[in-house]
């Protein structure tokens, strides 16, 4: 029964927030809702705001639905699903005026929490599950699916589609499949019976996601490493990067295993793994393993987060100076120190740009979402070998651990891999003499040989001073010649890293410069600013060293904002240091509380500054 009279109806444009207790199984119910909306063809996002805890602490999940594709985090919650009594006060307080709160009315709600401008929807979920399920654990788990059923009814989500998704998930477990379907139906029926369904904000099918997928960045990173042909990985567990290697391990078990035929009549065929993943004793060993693998000619990588990068610093300098290809996935979290391990930030930009002691400078790539993560990941292995140097994939927790709706990943079978200059025995045979660092190419990279190649190509590398040939030196001129070439080599990478993404508007005098996962929020902010009469151009930095267009963009705008998720304006500083743009020509807009960025925050910061 639907009565819309007198109510403003908003289709495919709303946000809901779900408040849960960590470790109670809510994540799968929340993910199910998001997946269902995605399958209905509607652009959607899900942000998991979870604690650094295994069980018991409050956790939230936010779903934003937006038919126009604005799926950055929204702070305007139309519906609060308050399933955690610990946080009722905070949760009920955060719903927008005119919004709704869904709660478990098995127990009465404290009158002090009531708000006259918010509609309360009470459903006796706990009671319902107590009556319908026998096992204690089931009663807790099924409460989640029951509230999902209620939300399906409240938002007008296709109930058959949700039932189908549950059937897919529990295809192999009939008992669980039936419990889930039953719980879904309980919640759904209660809502239809007791409330006006759907609510004034609701979904309606669209056709905007049929060529899209739902994927997190850590999975995409692992896929990138698989497609790039990485074979050696060294790693140490750390939130939020652990899933990169978990996924790589799973993918390798499927796509990198092959059966070798028996060698003799008495032998049996063997299954071999075309990969070697080593869980190291610490991050120092992890990067050491990657250096060893890269030196010996295998595509090698590690995945880590800020604290791991801190530990890896010494060997990153060794890789830079001895010119060894290395790929690092840094899924950034909130620092300093242990910081907030389950919160997102972009605060390792300077750490990675200059990782290690002495004069070092690295190549950085800044993907915005899982699709770019996949593409840049493949690219990072090419860049590492082309330039024989460490390459950092600077992701963050938001990209790595949240599910994103992105276009399907594609692979071009005609794509070739850039292995950089490597000499074979045949090449060596035609040479008078080989020196490791001599005869650099136009990109200032010298051809290398791999261990195991002809003795003519044998070389001895060292982290200590060496001359242009690779021989030990302590002479000032010989030392400088090498570090100057390394600087030129780094600069040459500007033409190879992904170009900045630029979106222009007529008559824009304001520029919005950003990077990584700020993408959607800042693009939406540019739209919102235009509605408020401020035309703003958009530039997203996608790689370091910086392409010349970045400097031109900043110089051609009266007012440039650099929007990033750290306290100190690290991208702005790096632009000033490395792109030659005066620091004063850029204004920082900084968001570093640890949650994903929303457009409203950017608009407020920009307008406040322009008005001042």
């Amino acid at each position: 029964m639907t009565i819309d009279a007198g109510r403003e109806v908003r289709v495919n444009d709303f946000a809901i927030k779900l408040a849960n207790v960590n470790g109670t199984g809510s994540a799968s119910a929340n993910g199910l809702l998001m997946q269902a909306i995605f399958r209905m063809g509607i652009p959607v996002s899900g942000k998991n705001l979870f604690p650094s805890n295994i069980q018991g602490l409050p956790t939230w999940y936010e779903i934003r639905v937006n038919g126009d594709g604005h799926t950055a985090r929204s702070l305007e919650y139309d519906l609060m699903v308050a399933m955690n009594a610990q946080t009722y006060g905070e949760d009920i307080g955060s719903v927008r005026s005119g919004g709704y709160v869904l709660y478990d009315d098995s127990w009465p709600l404290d009158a002090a929490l009531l708000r006259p401008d918010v509609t309360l929807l009470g459903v006796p979920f706990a009671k319902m599950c107590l009556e319908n399920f026998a096992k204690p654990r089931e009663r807790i788990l099924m409460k989640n699916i029951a509230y999902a059923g209620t939300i399906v009814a409240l938002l007008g989500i296709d109930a058959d589609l949700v039932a189908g998704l549950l059937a897919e998930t529990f295809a192999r477990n009939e008992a669980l499949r039936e419990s889930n379907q039953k719980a879904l139906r309980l919640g759904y029926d209660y809502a239809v019976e007791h409330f006006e369904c759907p609510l004034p904000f609701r979904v309606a099918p669209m056709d905007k996601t049929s060529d899209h997928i739902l994927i997190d960045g850590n999975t995409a990173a692992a896929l990138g490493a698989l497609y790039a042909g990485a074979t050696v990985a060294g790693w140490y567990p750390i939130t939020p990067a652990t899933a990169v290697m978990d996924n790589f391990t799973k993918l390798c078990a499927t796509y990198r295993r092959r059966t070798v035929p028996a060698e003799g009549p008495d032998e049996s065929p063997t299954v071999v793994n075309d990969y070697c993943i080593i869980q190291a004793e610490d991050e120092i060993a992890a990067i050491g393993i990657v250096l060893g693998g890269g030196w010996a000619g295998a595509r090698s990588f590690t995945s880590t987060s800020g604290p791991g990068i801190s530990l890896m610093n010494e060997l990153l300098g060794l890789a830079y100076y001895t010119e060894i290809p290395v790929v690092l996935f840094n899924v950034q979290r909130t620092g300093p120190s242990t910081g907030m391990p389950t919160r997102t930030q972009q605060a390792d930009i300077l750490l990675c740009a200059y990782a290690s002691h002495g004069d070092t400078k690295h190549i950085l790539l800044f993907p915005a979402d899982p699709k770019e993560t996949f593409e840049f990941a493949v690219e990072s292995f090419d860049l590492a070998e082309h330039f024989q140097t460490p390459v950092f994939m600077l992701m963050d927790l938001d990209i790595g651990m949240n599910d994103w709706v992105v276009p399907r990943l594609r692979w071009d079978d005609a794509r070739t891999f850039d292995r950089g200059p490597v000499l074979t025995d045949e090449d060596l045979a035609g040479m008078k003499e080989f020196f490791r660092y001599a005869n650099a190419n136009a990109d200032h990279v010298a051809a290398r040989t791999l261990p195991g190649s002809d003795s003519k190509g044998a070389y001895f590398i060292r982290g200590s001073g060496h001359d242009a040939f690779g021989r030990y030196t302590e002479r000032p001129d010989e030392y400088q010649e090498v570090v100057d070439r390394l600087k030129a080599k780094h600069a040459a990478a500007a033409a190879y890293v992904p170009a900045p993404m630029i979106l222009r508007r007529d008559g824009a005098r304001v520029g919005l410069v950003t990077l990584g996962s700020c993408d959607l929020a800042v693009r939406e902010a540019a739209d919102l600013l235009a509605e408020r009469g401020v035309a703003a151009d958009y530039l997203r930095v996608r790689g370091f060293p910086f392409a010349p267009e970045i400097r031109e963009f900043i110089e051609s705008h009266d007012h440039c904002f650099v929007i990033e998720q750290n306290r100190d304006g690290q991208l702005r500083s790096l632009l000033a240091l490395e792109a030659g743009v005066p620091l004063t020509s850029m204004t920082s807009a900084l968001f570093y509380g640890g949650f994903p960025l929303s457009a409203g925050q950017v608009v407020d910061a920009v307008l406040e500054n322009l008005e001042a």
Partner: protein
Amino acid sequence: MPSITKPLIPLAPLPTNDLGLTIRDYEGAMSTLCAGCGHDSITAAIVQAFWELAMPPRDIAKLSGIGCSSKTPTYFIRGAHGFNSAHGRMAAIATGAAAANRELTLLGVSGDGDSLSIGIGHLAHAIRRNVKMVYVIENNGVYGLTKGQLSASADIGTRPKKGEANVIAPIDPIMLGLSMGATFLARSFSGDKEQLVPILKAAVAHNGFALIDVISPCVTFNDHEGSTKSYRFVREHEVKEVVTDYVPVREEITATVGGRGSRTVTMHDGSVLTFRATPEGYDPTNRLSVEAYIRDHQRHGEVVTGLLYLDESGSSMHEVNHTPAHALAKIPVDRLCPGSAVLDDLMSDFR
């Protein structure tokens, strides 16, 4: 100190090995260590061992950390790739190189500072993983390059050249190895090439991590009275009871050996290791009795040398990981990439 190319002085025709190479072909640059340094004798033993094994230099990769000992890989086997890496990190880097190319014979050279202090974690875990490599600790009890501070292997009572006697218990790499599940543990003395060469050869044949602790006196900072790593002390206190011979697989075994406690162990590649003389009751394949024997002698201030422990039944890192017989690094990347059809198919998992 720069490395100095060794002048090749033509001598009377030198003997050649099966590859037609002379011992000179296994040498490297001129040593820049102090005259009389024990490390140079170890270098000579390495040169001798690999020449006798007739291993093509290109098949060898030399790795080291930082310190006097770690400088030595430039002094031997110039035809092999070498990596003088970072302080304490060689074991980790060698693990990665082993993962990438199992066809290489990895020879790691480290010191007591490098292996027993800053890098002890990496050493312990390389032992646990049973990375197939030879790992030589050139153990002199001091930090030479920084002028004589005591290291973690210095015995209690050892007096540095300047300062107070050591009062902290030493770390014995052999005991560390026994507790970490090491599969090949040997101790030798740099002044004893006759003992060290067969141990090195057996270590190369070993299917796993072969740790060789070589006491190597530091003539500049730790060869004085009061040192337990001096030439004089080791010569006076060495108990050289576990004597071994190594017979490569391709040689016919003709020597018959006997004596007390003689036994043979067949190595992974078919070569044979003979414990020519072992003390009564000593079983080099029994972890507990090896530990008891070494501890007993330590109590009397004696240093037991020889190939002390061997277990050929363990699985190396590659066997545990089921990697192919040839180097991962040699598999063409386009063969490793699953291609568009697989990705298109995979995308349905993300709907």
